[in-house]
């Protein structure tokens, strides 16, 4: 049984937009960066991998098991975090943790408490009073305080300050290298991909234009590479 994520000839059509065909492999303990302009298809690809939307063609498997839309049991090992995590603003951070903790079968309260301290979140604060960066951190905390095996992050660092971004990058690296989580991170920011990822996939108008390991590429060269493939 192949370990990790396997995407084969994935095609998604939404309105007039066509994504793919896209194929990729991602092993546990590695992080893949998705780079592309707005509308390049990063979110469409991530939602397809997460089983959040219908695939028109192709297959997605996780550890050899097909990821199908509506297969909610796979949402235990596969966590998906959107750019602005949709959370219940009226609830406090503690109530949000209690709600999400009641849903996951493998929820680890001790890990959630450790992450709360690490990310410096106030449990008594209402979610709608949190800044964008704090909401991003809370969304990430909810996604990793259980037995997650694959983490799909959709522009979680967009619009957050430099400190929070560095914190999130460190967290992704730790999760990937120490806990063996396979991570797909979509971002506009080259530094995010350079600091947190091992591989990169560049998308342009729904098509992959470059795919390969970063091999310690510096931001400048990643940027050059991106623009050399027609990035905007």
């Amino acid at each position, binding site marked *: 049984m192949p370990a990790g994520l396997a995407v084969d000839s994935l095609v998604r059509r939404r309105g007039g937009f066509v994504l793919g065909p896209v194929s990729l492999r991602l092993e546990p303990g590695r992080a893949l960066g998705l780079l592309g302009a707005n509308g390049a298809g990063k979110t469409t690809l991530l939602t397809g991998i*997460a089983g959040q*939307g*219908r695939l028109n063609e192709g297959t997605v498997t996780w550890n050899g098991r097909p990821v199908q*839309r509506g297969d909610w049991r796979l949402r235990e090992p596969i*966590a998906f975090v959107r750019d602005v995590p949709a959370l*219940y603003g009226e609830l406090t951070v503690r109530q949000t943790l209690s709600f999400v903790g009641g849903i996951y079968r493998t929820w680890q309260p001790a890990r959630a408490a450790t992450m709360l301290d690490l990310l410096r979140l106030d449990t008594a604060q209402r979610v709608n009073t949190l800044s964008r960066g704090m909401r991003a951190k809370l969304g990430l905390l909810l996604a990793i305080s259980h037995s997650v095996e694959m983490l799909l992050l959709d522009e979680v660092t967009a619009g957050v300050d430099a400190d929070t971004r560095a914190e999130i990058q460190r967290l992704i690296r730790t999760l990937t290298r120490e806990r063996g989580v396979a991570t797909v991170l979509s971002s506009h920011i080259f530094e995010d991909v350079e600091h947190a990822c091992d591989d990169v996939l560049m998308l342009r108008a729904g098509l992959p234009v470059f795919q390969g390991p970063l091999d310690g590429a510096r931001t400048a060269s990643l940027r050059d590479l991106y623009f050399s493939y027609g990035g905007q």
Partner: protein
Amino acid sequence: MARGRPRCEICTSLTGASDVRQLIALVRKDWMLHWRSVAAFCVGFIALAHALTWLLPPLPQPGLALPPVVTVPVALSFVLTCVTWLVERERSRETFALLRALPVSDLQIVGSKYLAYVLMQLAGLAFVLVTTPVGAYLSPMQVVTTFMGILTFASLCLAAQLSFTHRKAGVAPVILLLVVAVGAARLGQSHAIVSQLVSRWRQPWLHASLWAVCVTVTAGCLIAAYLRVRSQDTEDLIG
């Protein structure tokens, strides 16, 4: 990938203790979000009832505080308002995306919405029974039948809200309410039917039949809502 799941989700989503725990977590979350609004509605209703009792001339029926022409629209608007809170809030603030990212089935999502509404209505009923003389002119069986009728309307509203997106989602239950109102008005014009219903309103078999109809319609609506939600991508569900 595009094909449906081979297993029956109804059989696999509510079979373990952890599934029930998840359902409780979902209902509890809805209750935490909306209990203040429900309380405000109930208090508002009592204030309205007292104001109308003071303004309107005394009713011919003994013990009846308000005419059905007032209480029925209030009850139906309670249904519409609560179901809109439960569904539209998730849609407009995109929290359906969070629910869809959590390991809960679409059946649990739809079921939790209905159960949360049932709790709201139970709270409303308890409040009305305590604060108004409903018990004086309705037998327990009639209260249960009325309660189930309102629950059936709620399941219709829930199915309508979940079946449509954007403006249609808001308009569909209102159209439904109009259809019910017009149907009731036309029924009311037929004196023979009304007199038969009134004369049998105390007979147990009539209530048993109505309960069976309510349960059937409610089950049908919930299954339709579940199938509709299941067929939608998360982006479409958010609208």
